[in-house]
């Protein structure tokens, strides 16, 4: 495709049913009420010159280039700020207008460097275009007057530069940072001729800027420009694809020059992001071409041997032969595999098919086990299917937004921007989190309630909220009576005094009155929507908590329309898809239990193989079975279990115990240290398939280059299966999707052809909903009636003790992604060179720790060292870290505790001790000695 330039209609679309008809240069056009004259003209095909307006931002009216004449009105109003009125007659061209516009342009150009031919934006500059459009031929003022041509360029951001001399002070960047991103890092300083853009009085890198790039995209000139464009030149073609980082699933135009990727530009038509992105998706793609990428298959007999490069055929035959040998010796169930949430639906599907049909067992699990498996269990029990109820757009209709155990501004930034926009419009915010996340207080945002609960007490808090709703008569009786079952029993349970806010106050640390107020707000504040993350699921009661939230939403009738719902914010880009595709050992694609004979029969018929009717091993069970000796070989697709999974020593012991570990990944990761076969994987720039985001939206991932390894990942699985005696052949990934659609009712209407036509669809997509389903459970729940489930609070076994008096909780930050294998290989390290331990000043002081000290973090299972950062974001007694860097290996200290229903690990609660690593002087040394013996037992 040649370079795609999306049309810019000047001002945003207006919703609303009422329409207005006007005439522009004699042409009639009908538009929604409130539309600007500029947009109406653009819709009728007439482009009015403009500089300060762009359709991603509200009109500002500062450049005066878009003047028009309106019959019966005096003067020449700006068309961007003038709304249409019935019968209006607009003239966009006249000698007077031409002169006025030329005058405006002349002023701009007289203070602008005239280096168009060598400028990085040549051909992509609106100032240049407008000079042509208005027919500017001469500049009368000369260039000798006062100007800004000597302003220095700010190159502090690793990805873009700010060349101040080219700035026309249109403020599009300032407005983009506020309106779209919601960070408000930029201001216009000064007035009139002296006005200039400022990143809060400092350079971009030292400012509040989060490097989302919205300002760069909005800038009409080369002032804010990607450094890659400066270096490589303007791109010449684009490919529409999907970000491979988080579960928001932003759509991008990958813009290339020849075969080189120059920049990623968020796509306005992308359903998930509508033209916005974060620093990861827009800028952090350099890992795909990083020299650390392994491009050739490798094998070795033992993990102490050197790797030996081999060709694909050798690697695949070797893998298949070893797998069959191990099965012959130890049984069919002695091998299994793990699918990845970073690969496409098609790649995941063929791996689970290879396992079920070629391996002949159900030992397939996915990395979602360690993040959102409780979502699957909890929402299936209550609503009937394992997915978020809303599309992202729905948040624009929410009146109360409750964020639980999620940090959207870091984890799901583009969704956070939508959410913040709605909060700025007046929606109320409730945050339930042990940590004071940025959302609690940031520019123009203030949470009405922050319930700063003790880690591990989610269920007690949500039950107490439900208790308030019930006992204060706030239940949506009609909704419950018509749509739900199990209410009476639940009501009896939840009304018990032990569930009252007062009863749990001491345990949870949440003041009862505040909790009551939050519950009342949720129940009575209009449309109330829950958004949650891993702070909900990664607990020993993760599944219970998911059901507790579902109960609360049903009890208040907050399900089944826009603006409400229960919504998981998924971590990795294709967590939803990998779960949908049958990666769980007990479920076939579409969340159907493996013991269902009818469903299994359809797969057996299509696949021509018998499928076992019993569930297989989950990831932690595989490790246990490996240590017991009955599980001997593992195929791992794109997942670094040795770094990302809890209790690292247990995991590595299990990996060591196996006879064959096959790793398929981009890099030699931590897990590969225990591998015998390494199969190089492809980056998202090479993949051809689909990802499904957290709102069930199936997006196309299109290759911008052929696989650098010479093989697509789906081909690898097919060839291993074939070498094991089970042919799996597809000419193209679209055929894999066709097979998925044929076997999975919720995907029945999905095909590459439809996705290419519609852009994306949200499942269920079938005969009943041929264009997909943005909002679920509208007229009834997927399971028929919504089911209230009793959710008693059972505390975790992990308790702080004398030896381990602090509670560690973990999370992620904006610029890094998961185990960091990709983002650590980009300039994003500028923001997060290492994992640090956030510790409350009080806890630090009693341990003699100052800001920046190296400290030892230890739990009953292991220890690691990292730098301490004093922070009062957590309550006293709670410390916090991230897990992006293998060198810190935060999971060395996390334990084997897991969610009772799904074995999702309890990352969010670990009893730990923290002490200085190199204590200065004797007194502190004694402290560390006190500490170290504690770690040894």
């Amino acid at each position: 495709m040649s370079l795609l330039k999306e049309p810019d209609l000047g001002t945003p679309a207006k919703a609303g049913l009422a329409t207005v008809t006007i005439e522009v240069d004699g042409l009639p056009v009908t538009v929604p009420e409130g539309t600007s004259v500029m947009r109406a003209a653009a819709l009728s095909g007439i482009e009015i010159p403009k500089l300060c307006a762009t359709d991603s931002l509200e009109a500002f009216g500062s450049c005066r280039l878009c003047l028009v004449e309106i019959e019966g009105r005096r003067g020449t109003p700006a068309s961007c700020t003038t709304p249409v009125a019935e019968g209006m007659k607009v003239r966009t061209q006249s000698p007077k207008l031409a002169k006025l516009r030329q005058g405006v342009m002349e002023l701009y150009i007289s203070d602008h460097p005239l280096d168009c031919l060598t400028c990085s934006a040549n051909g992509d500059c609106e100032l240049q275009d407008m000079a042509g459009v208005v027919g500017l031929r001469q500049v009368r003022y000369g260039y000798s007057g006062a100007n800004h041509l000597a302003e220095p360029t700010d190159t502090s951001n690793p990805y873009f530069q700010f060349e101040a001399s080219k700035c026309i002070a249109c403020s599009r960047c300032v407005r983009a940072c506020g309106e779209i991103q919601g960070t408000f890092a930029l201001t216009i300083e000064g007035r009139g001729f002296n006005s200039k853009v400022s990143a809060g009085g400092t350079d971009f890198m030292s400012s509040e800027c989060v490097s989302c790039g919205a300002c760069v995209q909005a800038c009409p000139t080369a002032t804010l420009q990607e450094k890659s464009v400066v270096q490589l030149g303007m791109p010449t073609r684009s490919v529409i694809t999907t970000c491979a980082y988080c579960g928001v699933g932003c759509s991008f135009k990958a813009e290339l020059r020849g075969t080189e990727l120059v920049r990623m530009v968020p796509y306005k038509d992308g359903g998930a992001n509508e033209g916005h992105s974060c620093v990861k998706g827009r800028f952090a793609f350099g890992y795909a071409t990083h020299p650390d990428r392994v491009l050739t298959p490798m094998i070795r007999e033992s993990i102490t041997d050197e790797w030996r490069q081999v060709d694909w055929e050798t690697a695949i035959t070797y893998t298949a032969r070893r797998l069959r040998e191990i099965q012959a010796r130890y049984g069919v169930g002695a091998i299994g595999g793990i699918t990845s949430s970073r690969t496409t639906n098609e790649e995941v599907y063929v791996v689970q098919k290879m396992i079920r049909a070629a391996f002949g067992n159900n030992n397939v699990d996915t990395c979602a086990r360690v993040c959102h498996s409780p979502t699957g269990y909890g929402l299936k029990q209550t609503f009937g299917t394992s997915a978020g109820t809303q599309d992202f757009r729905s948040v624009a209709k929410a009146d109360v937004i409750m964020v639980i155990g999620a940090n959207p501004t870091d984890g799901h930034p583009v969704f956070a921007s939508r959410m913040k926009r709605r909060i700025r419009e007046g929606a109320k915010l409730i945050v339930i989190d042990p940590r004071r996340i940025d959302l609690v207080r940031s520019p123009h945002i203030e949470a009405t309630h922050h319930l700063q609960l003790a880690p591990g007490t989610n269920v007690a808090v949500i039950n107490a909220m439900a208790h308030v709703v019930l006992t204060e008569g706030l239940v949506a009786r009609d909704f419950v009576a018509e749509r739900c079952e199990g209410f009476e029993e639940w009501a009896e349970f939840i009304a018990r005094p032990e569930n009252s806010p007062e009863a749990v106050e001491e345990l949870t640390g949440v003041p009862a009155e505040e909790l009551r107020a939050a519950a009342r707000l949720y129940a009575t504040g209009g449309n109330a929507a829950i958004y949650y993350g891993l702070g909900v699921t990664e607990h020993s009661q993760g599944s219970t908590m998911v059901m507790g939230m579902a109960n609360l939403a049903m009890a208040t009738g907050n399900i089944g329309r826009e603006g409400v719902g229960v919504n998981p914010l998924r971590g990795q880009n294709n967590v939803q898809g990998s779960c949908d595709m049958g990666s769980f050992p007990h479920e076939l694609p579409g969340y159907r239990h493996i013991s269902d004979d009818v469903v299994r029969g359809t797969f057996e018929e299509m696949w021509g193989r018998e499928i076992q009717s019993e569930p297989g091993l989950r990831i932690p069970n595989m490790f246990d079975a490996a240590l017991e000796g009955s599980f001997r070989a593992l195929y791992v697709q794109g997942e670094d279990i040795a770094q990302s999974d809890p209790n690292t020593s247990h995991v590595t012991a299990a990996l060591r115990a196996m006879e064959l570990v096959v790793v398929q990944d981009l890099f030699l990761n931590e897990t590969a240290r225990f591998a015998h076969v390494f199969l190089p994987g492809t980056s998202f720039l090479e993949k051809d398939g689909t990802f499904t985001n957290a709102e069930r939206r199936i997006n196309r991932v299109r290759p911008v280059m052929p696989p650098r390894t010479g093989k697509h990942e789906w081909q690898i699985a097919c060839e291993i299966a074939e070498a094991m005696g089970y042919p799996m052949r597809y000419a193209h990934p679209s055929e894999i999707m066709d097979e998925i659609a044929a076997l999975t009712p919720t995907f029945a209407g999905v095909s590459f052809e439809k996705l290419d036509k519609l852009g994306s669809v949200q499942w269920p997509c079938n005969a009943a909903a041929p264009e997909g389903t943005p909002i679920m459970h509208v007229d009834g729940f997927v399971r028929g009636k919504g089911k209230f489930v009793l959710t008693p609070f059972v505390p975790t076994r992990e308790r702080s003790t004398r030896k381990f008096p602090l509670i560690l909780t973990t999370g992620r930050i904006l610029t890094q992604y998961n185990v960091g294998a990709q983002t650590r290989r980009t300039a994003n390290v500028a923001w997060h060179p290492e994992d640090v331990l956030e510790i409350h000043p009080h806890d630090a002081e009693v341990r003699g720790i100052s800001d920046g000290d190296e400290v030892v973090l230890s739990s009953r299972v292991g220890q690691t060292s990292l730098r301490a950062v004093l922070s009062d974001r957590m309550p006293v007694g709670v410390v916090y870290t991230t897990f992006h860097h293998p060198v810190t290996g935060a999971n060395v200290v996390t334990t084997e505790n897991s969610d009772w229903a799904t074995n999702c690990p309890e990352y969010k609660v670990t009893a730990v001790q923290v002490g200085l690593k190199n204590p200065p002087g004797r007194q502190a040394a004694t402290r560390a000695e006190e500490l170290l013996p504690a770690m040894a037992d």
Partner: protein
Amino acid sequence: MGAELRMEPRTETRTESHGGISPQIRMANEIAVQFHHQPPEEAAAAIAAHIRAFWEPRMRAELLRRAEAEPQALDPLALAAARLLRG
């Protein structure tokens, strides 16, 4: 950055973690406490159903073996569930 990636981890681990409890016993007990609020018979049936739906056969076999060998290690409801699974 390359150098940073090759750095040796600063970590240390201990093998002790489970306190010697078999994973099957630990997990069955974790499930059982979630059902303590229900009448024992219903609870045992629910636990058994959960284990049947989510546990691989060799894990169930190990649970049954342990239930035989060391019944005292199991929560009474988990033990009752194990009996149902056998039956």
